[in-house]
């Protein structure tokens, strides 16, 4: 690399970090929507950005986003799909006035994930390409497995009250039925949308934006408006309540979920975290115990082991690790250029968006790794300060006004960037489907069927047949 590139790249990394830090405060926006907005901005000023700075700029944008979107998600309950994995514990902590601690714990997880990405370099170059090639020809049924497990593993949330067995069944399984309906409608929408793109070709990279905003952002905002959630008074912690064990316990689920999401198309961090939770949960190693009474008639105490209390912290840390592995790792894999994988193994929207304007070359991986460390460190420092500021201001913000402004802003973004009234119509249609999980308490990630099903079918080569069957072609 020519040495004068370094200050230029550094400048664009700082710019990307700044852009990511600002854009992440548009609540409930998915990272790839943000990348889409950045691409629009870049297209307008592409003659100003040198070719070799494109990838570092976008990498730092994603790195900053993965650190700092923790703040609006934690304090204002605005989640994108992937944040579902960390929603409940951070919400619970905000209600107890510990929002800053929740954000910092998640941030520590993200920082750990950033260093993990670097530490995994030998794995990415010597083992990962083999796995990518071995699984490469089998991805359609692997996605099929994800779909089947995802639907079948949603257990009834009702207790099963009712006079007849049928009524009990319906009462208990309401969330499962709603989940299946959401999945089916999202899949059908995805098949139609991918077969017959409504937006013009020049907006192809923003095609998915109104869909994602409708499925995830709008329902989150409506839910927050309906729930009238207002953060209580928060305190600024001088330390966080976590030790090395918490971080080591959080590493495995974070790695597993993050890598699943980074590699498998249309599998997001939310789905990855759900699977990783099933795979790696070791809570039962230290199960609840009964302490026999010392005197007859005394209360039998149920001992809740420390491992139960750790869950909240582990969840946030693992969520942070998984988030950066998904957001950043999926893009970083684009740069793992080996003999087996000459075009890298990058996945995700950002790799897809950038492919027409940029191609990775051998050696870029280390520029990207340095970008992650540099941008990650700055982002983490911003997060520390940002959490303090958010803790001070969150209880004083009028949430209803804020969400109303966000709703208008998102609609405006969709209108101006993603197809005008057609984009708004798509957003409205997907919002209706996205509201089903809000009202019936089923998994929000069922909406990801919009990509999962068409991608699995297209990978297997059945996409066209199904489209014919549905009368779409």
């Amino acid at each position, binding site marked *: 690399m020519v040495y004068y590139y370094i200050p230029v790249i550094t400048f664009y990394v700082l710019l990307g970090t700044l852009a990511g830090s600002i854009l992440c405060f548009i609540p409930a926006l998915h990272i790839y929507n943000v990348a889409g907005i950045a691409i629009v901005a870049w297209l307008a000023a592409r003659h100003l950005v040198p070719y070799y700075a494109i990838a570092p700029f976008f990498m730092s944008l994603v790195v900053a986003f993965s650190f700092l979107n923790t703040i609006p998600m934690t304090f204002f309950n605005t989640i994108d799909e992937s944040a*579902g994995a960390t*929603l*409940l514990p951070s919400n*619970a902590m905000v209600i107890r006035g510990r929002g800053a601690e929740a954000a910092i714990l998640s941030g520590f997880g993200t920082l750990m994930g950033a260093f993990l990405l670097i530490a995994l370099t030998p794995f990415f170059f010597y083992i990962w390409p*083999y796995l990518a*090639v*071995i*699984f490469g*020809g*089998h991805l*359609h*049924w692997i996605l*099929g*497995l994800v779909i089947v*497990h995802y639907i*079948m*593993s*949603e*257990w*009834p*949330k009702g*207790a*099963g*009250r009712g006079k007849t*067995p049928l009524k*009990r*069944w319906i009462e*208990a*399984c309401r969330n499962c039925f709603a989940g299946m309906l959401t999945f089916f409608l999202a899949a059908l929408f995805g098949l139609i949308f991918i077969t017959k793109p409504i937006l013009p070709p020049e907006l192809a990279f923003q095609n998915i934006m109104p869909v994602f905003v409708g499925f995830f952002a709008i329902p989150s905002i409506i839910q927050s408006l309906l729930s009238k959630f207002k953060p209580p008074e928060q305190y600024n912690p001088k330390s966080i309540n976590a030790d090395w064990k918490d971080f080591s316990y959080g590493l495995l689920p974070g790695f597993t979920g993050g890598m699943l999401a980074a590699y498998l198309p249309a599998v997001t961090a*939310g789905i990855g975290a*759900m699977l990783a*939770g*099933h*795979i*790696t*949960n*070791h*809570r*039962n*190693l*230290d*199960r*609840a*115990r*009964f*302490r026999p009474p010392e005197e007859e*008639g005394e*209360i*039998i105490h*149920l*001992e*809740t*082991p420390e491992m*139960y209390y750790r*869950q*909240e912290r582990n*969840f946030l840390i693992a969520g942070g690790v998984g988030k950066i592995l998904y957001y950043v790792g999926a893009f970083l894999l684009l740069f793992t250029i080996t003999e087996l994988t000459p075009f890298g193994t990058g996945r995700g929207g950002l790799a897809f968006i950038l492919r027409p304007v940029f191609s990775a070359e051998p050696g870029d991986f280390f520029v990207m790794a340095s970008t992650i460390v540099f941008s990650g460190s700055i982002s983490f420092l911003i997060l520390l300060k940002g959490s303090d500021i958010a803790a001070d201001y969150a209880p004083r913000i009028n949430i209803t006004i804020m969400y109303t402004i966000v709703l208008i802003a998102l609609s405006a973004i969709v209108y101006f960037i993603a197809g005008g009234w057609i984009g708004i119509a798509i957003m409205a249609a997907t919002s209706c489907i996205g509201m089903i999980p809000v009202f019936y308490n089923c998994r929000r990630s069922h909406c990801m069927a919009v990509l999962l099903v068409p991608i699995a079918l297209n*990978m*297997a*080569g059945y996409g066209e047949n199904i489209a014919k069957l549905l009368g779409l072609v």
Partner: protein
Amino acid sequence: MKGLTHFVSGVAAATFIPQVVRMSAAGRLDIPGAASSFIIVLAGMYGIMPDTLDFKVGQFFDEPDIVVDPDPLNPNPKEMAQKFAEAVSRSAQEGRMIKIQYMPIQLGANRWRQYLIIFGEKEVSVQINEVVSTSQIPYPGTSPDPEKRSATVTLSHRIKPTSCDTDWLNKLVRKIRKTIKGGEKKKKTVKPSTIDILSGTTFGLKMESDGDIYFDWLPWHRTWSHSYILGLMLAAPWALIAYLLKLDMWWMYGLVAFLGFAVHITEDMTGHIGGSLLWPILKPRTEGFEMFKASDPRTNFSIIYAGFILIVFNLDRFTSNLLTGGPESFWSWWFFLLVFLVLPLAVYFKIIARISDGIKKREAGLKFTREEEEPDGTGDPVID
């Protein structure tokens, strides 16, 4: 075992059939027989099917004789214990299994009132505990008033955790278990049950030939749904559909589905509850070999990991031939399995042994008893 464990095991088992792996490979690859088939998905689907049938269907259609649905604002432990005593008396009088269902006490989206049912030989106590979250963590300061907290009621008959009226299959399982594990301690009392989140629990009570009442935990679980015969019946339609669609090797679809189902039932036999292996020919539930606890994370994690490695191993040796050197290369198979399966699991068990030692040291001298085992398939409460 957990749902995902069965799921991965079913898939791993299916990948041992070379034709299945080759059929599943993308048609664009230069592999003989590659047809982009989704056949392996059947193994996963049927691997989780028995528990899906139980927890999503069976439990709601299995009618309890007595339902205890405590008042969320004012739960009465005396009444709750009396209901159990009534179930014991009715079982003795009517000579059939009486099922009693205890419902959870939900107080909010993430708030549940926990209660304990503690069984003695001839008495039952109900104790109301703190409010807990969906992660089963108690909220401090929510324990009820001491006078409203617990009650004990005497039972008309003794209750016991092990049945004495067993069929030939159960006797055979007990014999094999004794051979594998050596002598067994006789279980004297029924373990306590904690009821808090999501659905409640059901107990079956049945008078036996020795005059005592056999206590059957979750009498609807692992009965008809955990039968090899039902597995065959449910797998057969897939073979028929494939035949009607004129697919190559149509019978393989039924075989793969059955394989997933059978792996699940067989894995469950390593636990405590077992299954009704030959339902509807032999209806009673057969005990398991009691080798592992269904919720033991060591068993679940190691099986899932082993399943993943075996899937990679099989996909590679039947399609890509990158790592394992192909079916002829005997040594490279062993090398692969040693490096990626045996060594990582050895390290994992070493780490877990250290953590477990720490837990044991903490427990030493405290004379704790463990909580009742979680029912298989439900998994840990997953927040989503």
